[in-house]
């Protein structure tokens, strides 16, 4: 990718209404619809029609063939005026200038170019790309791509992309220099139920780059957190300055590919010799208040946490667990972060004492040591989260009862032998723990995170299922909950230290 791939806006910010035309179009046109189910021109039309888009859908096809029940036209001029905002372009690169001109006449203000044969395809492609950028600029049209896999906008039920999945609606706005990463984040959204507001693959980012999308997300009412995958940052200072502007308004999470590619430089100064690309980028992102994630799952989970939990006002964490070992490793995981295991204040200690038999840990992590009865877990979560010297709570051990219930349900003794009653109790309890964690978080305005590997090993378990139903992330491990919470704490501190909170 060239410098253009970094998406430095050529002349001032792109008008928001052009982004709205792409993310909330009144009507969509697929240019180059195909009758062949393997072609982009078929798949994109299929996905737009199949995912529940409510606006009008049009398509062009050279022969004017019917595709998926849509009567296509051979000529864009035959389409109605003023009903189409977005064109999804699958036609060959050579045809596209004419497509854009014809679309502009119909009032189209956003184009997503899926076609290849541009900047990724040698000098002729680069020239065609530059020509397309100039044309779109002249026509006042947003030009996304080319060579991108598409755009989704679940609040508008729009799935204009050439791959699955169509993620659930939510508040994470995604922009990526790699289409595969869009899919990965969407897959995590589908798995966890923490949904997406907008997602776009920048493709060659000829005219619109990742920072442009993120700047739009900062003002987009559907988006609460921006999540980006970037490989090339081009003019690093301009890139970071723009991300800082976004981070001042909404949380920004960045996964950076090729982090280890730029080695240390030969330099006369020791400082220069130590200045690897990655170290400089890392410092610049910290300074700009951007959360940098090391992996794709860390990136998604940080974004999902920003989208579904309040920021902690401090770093004092109480870990509540029904299982001792997990509490210990959670404390270990915290040692590598800026979070602290809160020292239990005496009044909180006394209050927990009143709820549990004396064998509980009497320390943080609060290991209930199997001493809990029907109402204990909700009560302890409430006590911990509502204490003024506690900033966040991590709850472990949910779902264990339902896991046993499942064995009983699936075993040879079901039903009978009194199994139904205990199974029902177990399953209600786990769902209740999940609900209590959410309620306590709401009531106190503090993050309350629930972690269990059952989120992935047994996603139908009533515990994780109830966390999902509540729109929150059920963390697949305690250490992943710790890493996500650390991102929230760092942002909270970044804002507070700069009087931005």
């Amino acid at each position, binding site marked *: 990718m060239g410098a253009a791939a970094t998406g430095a806006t050529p002349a001032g910010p792109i008008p928001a209404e052009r982004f709205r035309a792409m993310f909330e179009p009144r009507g969509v046109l697929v240019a180059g619809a195909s009758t062949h189910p393997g072609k982009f021109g078929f798949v994109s039309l299929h996905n737009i029609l199949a995912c529940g888009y409510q606006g009008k859908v049009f398509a062009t096809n050279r022969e004017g063939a019917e595709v998926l029940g849509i009567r296509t036209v051979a000529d864009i001029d035959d389409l109605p005026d003023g009903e189409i905002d977005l064109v999804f372009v699958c036609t060959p690169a050579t045809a596209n200038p004419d497509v854009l001109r014809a679309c502009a006449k119909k009032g189209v203000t956003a184009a997503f170019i899926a076609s290849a044969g541009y900047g990724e395809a040698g000098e002729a492609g680069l020239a065609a790309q530059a020509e397309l950028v100039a044309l779109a600029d002249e026509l006042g049209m947003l030009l996304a791509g080319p060579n991108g896999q598409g755009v989704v906008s679940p609040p508008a039920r729009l799935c204009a992309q050439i791959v699955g999945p169509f993620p659930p609606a939510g508040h994470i706005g995604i922009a990526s220099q790699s289409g595969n990463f869009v899919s990965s984040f969407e897959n995590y959204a589908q798995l966890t139920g923490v949904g997406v507001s907008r997602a776009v693959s920048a493709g060659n980012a000829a005219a619109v780059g990742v920072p442009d999308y993120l700047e739009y997300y900062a003002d987009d009412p559907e988006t609460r957190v921006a999540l980006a995958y970037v490989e090339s*940052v*081009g*003019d*690093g*200072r301009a890139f*970071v300055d723009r991300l800082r502007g976004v981070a001042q308004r909404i949380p920004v999470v960045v996964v950076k590919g090729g982090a280890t590619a730029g080695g240390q430089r030969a*330099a*006369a*100064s*020791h*400082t*220069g*010799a*130590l*200045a690897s*690309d990655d*170290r*400089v*980028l*890392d*410092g*610049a992102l*910290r*300074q700009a208040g951007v959360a940098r994630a090391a992996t794709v799952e860390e990136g998604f989970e940080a974004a999902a946490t920003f989208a579904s939990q309040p920021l902690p006002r401090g770093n004092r964490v109480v870990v509540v667990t029904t299982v001792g070992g997990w509490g210990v490793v959670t404390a270990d995981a915290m040692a590598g972060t800026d979070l602290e295991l809160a020292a239990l204040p005496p009044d909180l200690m006394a209050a927990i004492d009143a709820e549990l038999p004396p064998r509980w840990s009497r320390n943080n992590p609060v290991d209930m040591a199997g001493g809990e009865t029907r109402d204990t877990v909700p009560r302890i979560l409430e006590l911990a989260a509502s204490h003024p010297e506690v900033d966040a709570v991590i709850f472990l051990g949910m779902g264990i009862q339902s896991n046993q219930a499942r064995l009983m349900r699936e075993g040879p003794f079901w039903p009978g032998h009194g199994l139904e009653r205990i199974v029902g109790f177990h399953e209600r309890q786990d769902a209740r723990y999940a609900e209590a964690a959410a309620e306590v978080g709401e009531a106190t305005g503090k993050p309350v995170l629930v972690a269990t590997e059952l989120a992935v090993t047994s996603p139908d378990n009533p515990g994780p299922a109830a966390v999902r139903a509540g729109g929150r992330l059920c963390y697949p491990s305690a250490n992943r909950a710790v890493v996500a919470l650390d991102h929230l704490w760092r942002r909270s501190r970044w804002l507070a*230290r*700069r009087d931005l909170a």
Partner: protein
Amino acid sequence: MPTLSEAASKELLGTFGVPFPTERVVATVDGVVAAAGEIGFPVVVKLGGDAIAHKTERGLVRLGLGSPDQVRDAAGALLAAATPEDGEVHLLVAPMLRATRELIAGLHDDPQFGMTVMLGVGGVLAEAVADVSFRLAPITLVDAEEMIDDLSLQSLLGPFRGEPPVDRAAVAEVLLALSRAAGERGDIAAADLNPLLVVDGRPVAVDALVEVR
């Protein structure tokens, strides 16, 4: 890019508030002996000049000189080690500071990000340890404090082997001084404070190198 001599580098950065030990620039062996007497033994004597960048590698730094005779011998040997390529040279006399902790700080004009400020754990292993933190210049006080927090070896910054904890505000002030220097002197291309010794908890730069455009 040309480098300034150690003395000129220190003079430049000193005006922006980088703390350096009191030292003298002299031309002759007798001048060195007199300066050492005024500074107090032990002293460090170095050969300096605009064309001399990496003194340690060339053996142009003599440490821990405890008497006038030692100073005289060292100064003579240093002057004799000067080569024609070194151009005009001088001798630098400084107090021998004792410190168990060394930091490194500097400026680097990055091709992608422009001018950056760095703080790191110093010493001969600095590049191998690579416990460093960068920020884009100019930096604020908050940025400087967060750079200190970024270092992994926080235990070095607390009370250490009988020495008091590092004065974080003073370290932050060094970083801000570098940032100011870069902002006001557009001709600075790079700078090293290496080492930035921690003496009784306070940072003191005992060597400086500035590259100019």
